[in-house]
Structure formats: C-alpha cells, structure tokens
C-alpha cells in the first residue's frame, strides 16, 4: 500500500473522508431527528454514499497495487442496493400498521 502514487493516495483519502462524514451524518440524524418517518431517511446515507465511497477506494487501491482490476467488492454494493429497500418497505408498512 505504500507504493501508491501521491494522486491515488489523495483520492483514496478523500473518498474515505467523504464516506466517514456521510456515515456519521446519517447516524447523527438517526439519533437526533424527531419522528420515526424522518429517522427512516437518515441511515440511508451510510448505506449508499458511505459504502460506495469505501468500495470505490478499495477497488482503486487493489487496481493500483496489484495491477489488475478487482471488482468483487462491488458484490457488497449490489447486495446493499438490492436489500436495503426491502427492509425499508417492510419497516414502513409495520410502522404504518402499528401506529
């Protein structure tokens, strides 16, 4: 990992910082917002922006260090994109039914 060029290290650092800030904002929103329907929106920032930025950084490091594209981290992103709306829909239906 120390043989990365400077521009790649800067891009990876930027992606990691964006992922951390987005996930922290999402989790703070989960803690701070007032009703359940508002809180439903907040953690999706971590699911989408956080996970995508981290996976993009992983792919970039793997492609530059091992000199071949490695894409199996995107399996996690595919899984999150497919499964997060299912949980959200079921939770929403449950909240509407029970309130």
């Amino acid at each position, binding site marked *: 990992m120390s043989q*990365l060029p400077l521009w790649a290290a800067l891009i990876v650092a930027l992606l990691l910082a964006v992922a*951390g800030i987005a996930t922290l904002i999402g*989790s703070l929103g989960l803690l701070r917002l007032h009703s359940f329907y508002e809180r439903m929106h907040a953690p999706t920032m*971590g699911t989408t922006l956080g*996970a995508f930025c981290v996976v993009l950084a992983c792919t970039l490091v793997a492609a530059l260090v091992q000199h071949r594209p490695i894409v199996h*981290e995107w399996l996690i992103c595919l899984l999150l994109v497919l499964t*997060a709306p299912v949980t959200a829909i079921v939770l929403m239906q449950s*909240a509407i039914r029970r309130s």
Partner: protein
Amino acid sequence: MNQLILDGAIGFALLCFVLGLGCAVLRLLRGPAAEDRILALDTIYINGMLILLVLGLRFEAGLYFDVALLIALFGFAGSTALAKFLLRGEVIEP
C-alpha cells in the same frame, strides 16, 4: 508522505464509523418504538461492515471482505425477519 495521508484518512474514517455506531447504539437503547430499534440495528450492521472494509483496506487482507459480505447478508436477513415479525406477527407464514 503517502503512508501518512492514508493512515490519517483511515483513522478519521474509523473514528467517524465508531461514532456513528455509538449514535446507533444510543438509539437502540432509547428508541420509543420497536421499529426504531430495528432501524438502529440496521445502521449498526452497516457501520460494522464499513469498519471491516476499511480495516481490510488498511491491512491488505482478503479475509475482511468475506466477513463484511457475511455481515451484509445476515444483517439483511435479521432486520427483515424482525420487521416482518412486527408487521405480521410471525416470520414464516404457512
């Protein structure tokens, strides 16, 4: 220089993820409704998965990726089963 930048960014990202984990744990303990607790559980597993991915980036070990994939799979199964239980009263309907 490069290693310093990367280590700083990785430490910052890990700190943010751990703080987010703490916020979600507070919501899990405090949540007024059961749905809030399930949503907090969802956030907890996403944050833990991101921590494992960043650790895998730091130590360049492939094992972290497999653990993160398993956490994503089982976290989805767990939170959907809990939400389905709240919605219908049973998880698997005959």
